[in-house]
């Protein structure tokens, strides 16, 4: 059987979303970002919203999200993505507006913007990648770093007396009256990826129906920052991260 004979429409089992381009990703092997990017691209495409979407990218590893998904983007200052999204959605009510933020961006420097956008019930979706570390700057402690976990700025492990406790932003978001859908997901298995995609679709649809703010936390891997192989990182996440950051829906109005 030749290659040409195999590549036929009836044999197609998987197709890359058309909104994902062929630019080589800068993400490390085993990183969750790429999978979440793909799911977002798929959902926008399936909803037919490519011409009506504004994505807001963060400062952090996903700063270059705009290189990989072919929609219109604005690159926000560190932590400020929800403020940009607020203005975009209010001024373009028929647009699908989402932010894509990491834990340092959302749970540390942008805590105020995040909480207030969610509390105002802005009709946006916040995609929150929580890998418990600052990836882009080389593996420093994040507000979500687990107790005892070693990073470049807590080389002896996170000490609650020095650094306080890992911040559960998603739990905080669920208490806010402005939020419609708050959930914690992961992309560690095929089943989880399928569930995650449904969560993104649900959040995006909520935002278009004017139901309020939506937050999806993705408990994620950072194999480079954690200094583990992709397989080890995935396993470590399941064994440690999931113990502190419980998966599942926290709120679905």
């Amino acid at each position: 059987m030749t290659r040409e004979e195999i590549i036929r429409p009836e044999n197609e089992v998987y197709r890359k979303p058309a909104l994902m381009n062929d630019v080589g990703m800068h993400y490390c092997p085993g990183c969750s970002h790429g999978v979440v990017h793909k799911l977002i691209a798929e959902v926008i495409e399936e909803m037919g919203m490519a011409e009506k979407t504004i994505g807001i990218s963060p400062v952090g590893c996903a700063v270059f999200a705009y290189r990989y998904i072919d929609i219109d983007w604005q690159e926000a200052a560190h932590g400020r993505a929800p403020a940009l999204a607020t203005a975009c959605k209010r001024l373009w009510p028929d647009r699908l507006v989402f932010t894509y933020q990491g834990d340092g961006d959302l749970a540390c420097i942008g805590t105020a913007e995040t909480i207030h956008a969610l509390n105002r019930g802005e009709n946006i979706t916040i995609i929150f990648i929580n890998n418990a570390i600052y990836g882009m700057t080389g593996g420093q402690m994040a507000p979500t770093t687990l107790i005892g976990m070693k990073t470049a700025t807590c080389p002896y492990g996170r000490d609650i007396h020095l650094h306080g406790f890992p911040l559960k932003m998603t739990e905080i978001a669920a208490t806010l009256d402005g939020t419609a859908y708050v959930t914690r997901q992961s992309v560690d298995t095929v089943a989880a990826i399928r569930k995650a995609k449904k969560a993104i679709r649900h959040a995006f649809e909520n935002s278009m129906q004017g139901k309020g703010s939506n937050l999806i936390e993705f408990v994620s891997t950072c194999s480079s920052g954690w200094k583990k192989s992709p397989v080890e990182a995935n396993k470590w996440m399941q064994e440690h991260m999931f113990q502190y950051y419980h998966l599942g829906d926290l709120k679905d109005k």
Partner: protein
Amino acid sequence: MGEEREVLLLKGNEAIAHAAIRCGCDGYFGYPITPQSEVLETLAALKPWETTGMVVLQAESEVASINMLYGAGGSGKRAMTSSSSPGVALMQEGIGYMAGAEVPGLIVNVQRGGPGLGTIQPSQSDYNQATRGGGNGDYNVIVLAPASVQEMADFVDLAFELAFRYRNPAMILSDGVIGQMMEKVVLPPYKPRRTEEEIAQECPWAANGHGLKNRKPNVITSLELESSVMEVRNLHLQEKYRQIAENEVRYEENGCDDCDYAIVAFGSAARISQKAVDTARKKGYKIGIFRPITLWPFPEKEIARLSEHVKGILVVEINAGQMVFDVRAAVNGRIPVEHFGRLGGIVPDPDEIVQALEERFIHRK
């Protein structure tokens, strides 16, 4: 929606709000701070979202306000914020990002005295911050300095026009005097907000999804890790600033043709100085006044020309001496340039300006 002009008695801050609604502004994002809170209060009372569709939102901080402005401008909308000195200090990060990503927008600074929390009384001590960029990196913001309530109203539309023509943030640098005082003001007829098609035409670069099928994605960003590309981008910005400096200098002169000495002052200091000039002329001194309206770009050539036929220049500012350095640079040592100012929220009296003229120039041995 009246097609007519309207004459009202308004505070400077209120005039800003009225003018915004009338010039087709799409959104206002702001945070309360004295002495400019009437801008947001007036907008909230006028409810433009029910008439022109303009969005008005009280943000959680000045940091959020300026980033809302970035998002709005980046999507091609005419948006503005207003604040006073400590709040504008907080906005510098966002203004720098807007300059770097070439996002248009309007920032109104109704200045108060500093440093720090300072005072709620008027000041012009944010001149350096406004005219030097204010944040990190090499950039400039277009700065307009109103000297009347009428100019507060007129400069809103002008600032938007300039901001969108050059894809650059623009600032109205006012102060507590102009913001709080009441004057008769002629408001322009209502100009409709731009439609989506009009925005697409004026801002083909905007990130709003419009027409994505037939173009490459639009990305609003100030980031570029490749130095050779970043240098080209910076050179492009510098070229743009040169064009603005070439085309957009604005100023006003009064009595400069036959004067021995000239006062250079902007905003409320220029108004007070005009009174001082009137008094001085009655005393027989030939004094003229030169008022920069754009503080950046600065009327450098015009002040250089002025220095060719006057014996000295007194720069009057409500600060410790900031614009005086721009005047000295323009004069380039040809004649003496002195500074007179009051600090801490004290507004100078016209008589003390006359006295300063006498001491530093007229009676100088």
